[in-house]
């Protein structure tokens, strides 16, 4: 250790420059004629959820409001962070995209995807 040790400064970059995007936890259950999908989206407002069905892909995105350190307090333990959510699911064939029901409550987005009712199609026989 020298007498004239130089103090070096290092630029510290703030850790959370960008908001992380997490894939939310989910639970998929099969009922007789539907698939029930529940996603954990705590801290999100209902109108901040975007749900899209594209061909056979269901995608969920949600923006979560920031929950900063309250005024006057200091952080002692952090096990979850400010984040947004995004997750996509590949749907098996046979689901009626028109008939997806979605509800949000208690931080959980619940989706019901109904199977298409096997329609009897009349097939015309054309003259060869």
């Amino acid at each position, binding site marked *: 250790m020298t007498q004239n040790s130089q103090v070096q400064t290092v630029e510290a970059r703030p850790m959370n420059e960008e908001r992380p995007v997490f894939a939310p936890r989910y639970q998929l259950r099969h009922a007789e004629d539907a698939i029930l999908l529940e996603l954990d989206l705590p*801290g999100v407002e209902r109108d901040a959820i975007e749900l899209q069905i594209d061909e056979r892909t269901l995608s969920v995105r949600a923006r979560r409001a920031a929950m900063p350190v309250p005024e006057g307090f*200091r952080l*002692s*333990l*952090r096990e*979850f*962070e400010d984040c947004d959510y995004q997750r996509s699911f590949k749907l098996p064939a046979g689901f009626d995209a028109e008939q997806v029901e979605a509800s949000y409550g208690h*931080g959980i987005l619940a989706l019901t995807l109904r199977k298409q009712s096997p329609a009897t199609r009349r097939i015309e026989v054309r003259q060869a």
Partner: protein
Amino acid sequence: MVWTNRTLRPLWHPLRDFGSFQHEVEQLFQDLQSLPSRVLRPALNVYTREDEVLVRAEVPGYAQEDLDIALEGRTLRLSGKRNAPDGEGNGGTSSFVRNLQLPFRVVAEEITARLSNGILELRLPRAAEDRPKRIAIESAQ
């Protein structure tokens, strides 16, 4: 000192969590499919100031009546239990218990709790008798 506790249990920090070990081990086995490593749930963020502790917990799926907040000495016990039926309509339950050691005594009756969109926020004001008191120094003459 701030600890981020995504996958590891911190060795020490000012607010130490004494989880109910046996219960958490049981929970771990039940939730095996979703936990690649040991994660304490529900996730908590804790903030402190001189006269109050503020706790936020991610508790998606729990309604007010499913949650229980108890105080024993300087330990806050947060627990919850809810029905989580599986696809075949079979009953099932999901539950958790977490204990949090507080830096000072708080008054149970003054704890406020607010639940919104699966986020529980607790405010725990410091007990009056546990507040630092100024002690006058008398000069001995």
